[in-house]
């Protein structure tokens, strides 16, 4: 048989070897659906010894033809339309192509030229295909190339997104955290207070605002140094964290100044008990660098339900005034704004 195509009276004749070079995935079926001839890549996919076996033992027709018994006639009937197939042994691998009838009325059968669909990467792996197995006119290699290039680019983008997210979180928490104690900072507290105030207007829960100033802290700093002072602040922060609940906000807003936004039980007795507990724990001796520090705390507390107008400034100012009242009365105590001005609506008095 010649290795070249010949042209006789306007008809092109190509031997199977040449057909295989042009269309490595071609399949020639006889009129009963038996395989007469196939391209080299198709042989890698369905096997070398398939001559004479029937089409439907290897393939399943896709879409509208899927429910019918498949013979060469059915394949031929798709003539001129796109043909969709899947492999019986690998149902996930789809093929597509075109079928044309050979000879008058398809007497010589059907010629199919096929290529892989989007599952080409799986097909390449399963059948061990190389670039030589694809027709140069097939964009299969470009598809594989794009798949890997895309994966590399997405990998870079994903890594970039991860780094940006980490930087964002870190910037956020730096912007809202007091680096020494890990408590909220003034900015975070203002945001939480604004939110709580806004919540009041929409039926949100009442809250208390406690202003706490450490007593005798300056003496620690002056006699033992700043490192000791920092340690004491850390201990105080830990006490405040432990004495408050998850929904509460504890912030360090100055050198030895803290504010607490407290939710939940707001009866005077409860708030006083909390204040007393905090002060008692602050007064416990703190060991630092071989020395023992003794501090205390003064607290002033305002409760939102005592106010008709929801005014953060007024509450803060009143809590501050109550704190100084505590200091003036000998430190180490807790005072409620409502006890200092029992007769009037508090914000009006302030």
């Amino acid at each position, binding site marked *: 048989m010649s290795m070249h195509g010949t042209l006789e009276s306007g008809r092109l004749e190509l031997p199977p070897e040449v057909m295989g070079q042009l269309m490595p995935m071609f399949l020639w079926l006889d009129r009963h659906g038996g395989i007469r001839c196939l391209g080299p890549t198709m042989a890698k996919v369905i096997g070398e010894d398939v001559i004479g076996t029937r089409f439907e033992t290897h393939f399943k027709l896709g879409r509208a033809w899927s429910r019918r018994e498949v013979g060469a006639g059915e394949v031929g009937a798709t003539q001129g339309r796109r043909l969709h197939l899947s492999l019986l042994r690998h149902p996930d691998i789809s093929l597509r192509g075109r079928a044309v009838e050979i000879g008058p009325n398809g007497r010589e059968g059907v010629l199919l030229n096929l290529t892989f669909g989007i599952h080409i*990467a799986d097909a*390449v*792996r399963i059948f*061990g*295909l*190389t*670039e*030589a197995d694809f027709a140069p006119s097939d964009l299969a*290699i*470009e598809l*594989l*190339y*794009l*798949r*890997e*290039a*895309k*994966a*590399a*680019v997405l990998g*870079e*983008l994903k890594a*970039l997104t991860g*780094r940006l997210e980490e930087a964002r979180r870190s910037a956020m928490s730096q912007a809202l955290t007091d680096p020494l104690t890990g408590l909220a900072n003034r900015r975070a507290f203002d945001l939480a207070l604004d939110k709580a105030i806004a919540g009041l207007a929409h039926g949100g829960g009442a809250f208390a605002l406690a202003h706490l100033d450490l007593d005798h802290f300056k003496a620690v700093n002056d006699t033992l140094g700043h490192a000791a002072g920092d340690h004491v602040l850390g201990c105080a922060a830990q006490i405040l964290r432990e004495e408050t609940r998850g929904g509460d906000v504890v912030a360090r807003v100055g050198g030895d100044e803290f504010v607490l936004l407290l939710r939940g039980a707001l009866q005077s007795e409860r708030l006083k008990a909390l204040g007393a507990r905090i002060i008692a724990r602050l007064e416990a001796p703190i060991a630092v660098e071989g020395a023992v520090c003794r501090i205390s705390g003064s607290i002033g507390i305002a409760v939102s339900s005592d106010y008709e107008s929801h005014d953060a400034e007024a509450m803060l100012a009143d809590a501050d005034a109550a704190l100084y009242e505590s200091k003036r009365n000998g430190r180490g105590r807790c005072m409620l704004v409502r006890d200092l001005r029992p007769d009037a609506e508090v914000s009006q008095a302030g």
Partner: protein
Amino acid sequence: MHGLVNKSIQSFLRDNYGQALWVRVSQQIGVDPEGFEAMLHYDDALTEELLGAATRALDRPRGVLLEDIGAYLASIEELRRLLRFGGGDYWEFLFSLDELQGRSLMALPDLDLPDLALEVEGGGQFRLFVFGPMPGWGAVMTGLLRAMADDYGALVLIEQDGGGESYERVSVTLLEAAFNEGRGFDLAQPLGAA
């Protein structure tokens, strides 16, 4: 300049000469030691500064450094694989270079790689014209083509061959396309690599 270019130079310096050298170079050009982001863009002048600082730090001529960078690029497995998609042997690979820029644009539409044109002179003799956005791409391609010759197992002579105002030229003499087995290439991506 696309961040991928700067990031590649950064990786080259770090992988081949150590983190300490990279930190020194980054400080000289005022870049955070964390370095460049591959998916962002940077001023072209910064790339020149980066190369300048690297040539001083390594005390190597710019052309030699760029050749080494080209060879380094071909050694990165993901890039090596993408280059190997160019063809089954070195001959086909050479002819795929005309399409290299187009292929890179398919993956990254804003990547400003040089335009390449292969001139066939017969007898295994080729000339590659490199039309780069900045001078030096000819040297990079020289290093990259040499490394890919090893990868394909081809016996090839590759030299920088001058250039003109808008292009650089690389001469390629293909002595034997299948000189040894090379590194091998499986069209299927190794599982778990993606």
